């Protein structure tokens, strides 16, 4: 997809500057609120304060010329859905818009948008090009300042329309929050079908909103715990090919699959290093599981732990210097942080219950985990020093968090009670207030987020 900054091009702006813009937008809202509107809270992305009041935003249905009329409408719907699911925005129903029939060139009547309480406005047009491509243009407006915040255009093939929508969502999200978006991403997961005692499990991939599901394995072999490379279109996962459970590397673009290493036992719980050049995993050795690191270029393996315990679910800090993992070396499953060479392991979880599946945030500030206490399964976060534990969701069975690439949202799976029950993929943001089900064709588990696509 080619990407052209057009229409009043803007330079890449730093987070601070974007934050200022976001503040100005909100500040304007407050000024008006004194006259006729309830005050809207500031978009609070340092999410430790609890609930966030979503920002009202209008996405005017995009104009489409000729064949692209339907696509145009769908793109603006996907943008609205993305922003709504983030929990930070409240798209205003298009039927409530006063100014109708806008295209990207239409000057907004800002008073009309203020009247319906909108703080920001997105307009756009989709046009067919002679070469079969479509040209997409959009603008983001600050309704209260009466200013354009973004103007961009893109050229792509019509099949790519959903990605186009996600890219626009990311641009809006980034401009208004100062954080990178996560909409133009995919999620690899385990598709589960059939009765509970003979579940067929397939490696699958979908867009982050559940669209475009594609199967990567056929279901002949049990597959588990896929993890996305942070730098490439590769996935590492566990497969029972030939009745010999091992960690594999899978290239999504070529379909090529290879076993990782020549270990004398079962390997499992793999995860990439932040540079994508290594895979850390567990090797089962008799009653114990120890952590090993494999360099993907040299194929050399290094042993990192050596205890009479189960050490598993390793995850690197974003700078690669530390590893968090779970171990029952102290008698029950707890979280430990060690240096990436295996030295200096220190326990960081001390609450009641068992802690499992730690995952380091790409921002570095938090570690997400599954916690089991008194038969309840929770998803929570804790600081790497073991302080500040917060539970984001709790229930019969929640498991296996994975971070969005911007470190603001967690995806996980939730199993439901009963013989007919099964796992589904959910997301929750760091407030814990915004839980969203990701619709999938079958049961689904072990979601893992891709980096932002190129």
């Amino acid at each position, binding site marked *: 997809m080619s990407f052209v900054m057009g229409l009043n091009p803007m330079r890449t702006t730093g987070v601070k500057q974007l934050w200022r813009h976001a503040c100005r937008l909100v500040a304007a809202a407050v000024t008006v609120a004194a006259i006729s509107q309830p005050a809207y809270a500031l978009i609070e992305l340092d999410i430790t304060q609890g609930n966030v009041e979503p920002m009202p935003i209008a996405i005017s249905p995009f104009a489409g010329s000729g064949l692209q009329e339907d696509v145009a409408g769908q793109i603006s719907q996907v943008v609205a859905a993305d922003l709504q699911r983030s929990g930070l925005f409240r798209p205003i129903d298009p039927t409530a818009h006063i100014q109708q029939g806008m295209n990207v060139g239409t000057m907004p009547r800002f008073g009309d948008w203020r009247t319906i309480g909108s703080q920001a406005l997105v307009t756009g047009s989709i046009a067919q090009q002679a070469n079969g491509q479509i040209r997409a243009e959009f603008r983001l407006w600050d309704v209260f300042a009466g200013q354009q915040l973004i103007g961009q255009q893109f050229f792509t093939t019509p099949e790519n329309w959903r990605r186009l929508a996600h890219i626009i969502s990311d641009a809006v999200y980034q401009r208004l929050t100062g954080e990178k978006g996560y909409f133009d991403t995919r999620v690899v997961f385990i598709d589960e079908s059939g009765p509970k005692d003979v579940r067929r499990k397939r490696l699958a991939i979908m867009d982050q909103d559940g669209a475009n599901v594609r199967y990567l394995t056929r279901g002949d072999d049990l597959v588990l715990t896929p993890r996305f490379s942070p730098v490439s279109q590769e996935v590492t996962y566990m497969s029972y090919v030939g009745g010999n*459970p091992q960690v594999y590397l899978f290239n999504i673009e070529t379909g090529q699959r290879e076993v990782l290493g020549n270990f004398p036992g079962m390997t499992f719980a793999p995860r990439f290093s932040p540079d994508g050049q290594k895979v850390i995993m*567990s090797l089962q050795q008799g009653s114990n599981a120890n952590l090993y690191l494999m360099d993907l270029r040299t194929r050399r393996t290094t042993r990192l732990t050596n205890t009479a315990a189960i050490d598993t679910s390793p995850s690197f800090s974003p700078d690669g210097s530390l590893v968090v993992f*779970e171990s029952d070396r102290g008698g029950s499953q707890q979280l430990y942080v060690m240096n990436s060479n295996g030295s200096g392991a220190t326990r960081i979880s001390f609450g009641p219950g068992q802690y499992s599946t730690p995952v380091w945030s790409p921002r570095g500030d938090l570690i997400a985990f599954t916690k089991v206490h008194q038969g309840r399964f929770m998803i929570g976060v804790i600081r790497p020093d073991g302080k500040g534990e917060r539970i984001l969701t709790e229930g019969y069975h929640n498991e296996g968090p994975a971070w969005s690439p911007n470190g603001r949202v967690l995806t996980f799976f939730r199993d439901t009670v009963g013989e007919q029950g099964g796992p589904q993929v959910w997301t929750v943001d760091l407030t814990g207030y915004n839980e969203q089900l990701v619709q999938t064709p079958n049961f689904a588990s072990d979601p893992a987020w891709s980096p932002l696509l190129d």
Partner: protein
Amino acid sequence: MSKTLFARGARFAAVVAVCLVAAACSQTRPELTSGNSSVAAGSGQDFVVNVGDRVFFLNNQSSIDGSARAVLDKQAQWLQHYKNYSITIEGHADERGTRQYNIALGARRAAAVREYLVAKGISPTRIKTLSYGKERPVAVCNAASCWSQNRRAVTVLNGQ
């Protein structure tokens, strides 16, 4: 099955039957009666029905308790007799844990059974272990009665 093997099997079955009579009062498998002599001795069915192919574990545990020992003693005896079988011990966990840990827990249970059988004289070269974690439940209800059935290690015969 060869004639010799069958003869040996029949003799062994007689021995087992005697044991069963003695054990019937205290054992955990009351369904084992002399009626099972219709099962071909030394067959896979013989192993499952008359010996018992699985043992169970307490929550989060991998230790071999008394009733598991009784089953594994019989397994060892049977495998000593029918030396042509190799086995795979499949370790399992219930669904009330996380996936990765349960894979390791199932492996730990399989390893515990392996160690026990080896201590009883079964050659380690005949034994393979495999963990399915919580991925292959046999009982699917959401109750302790089902979870206890799923916390198991199953000895699977690999043919002769």
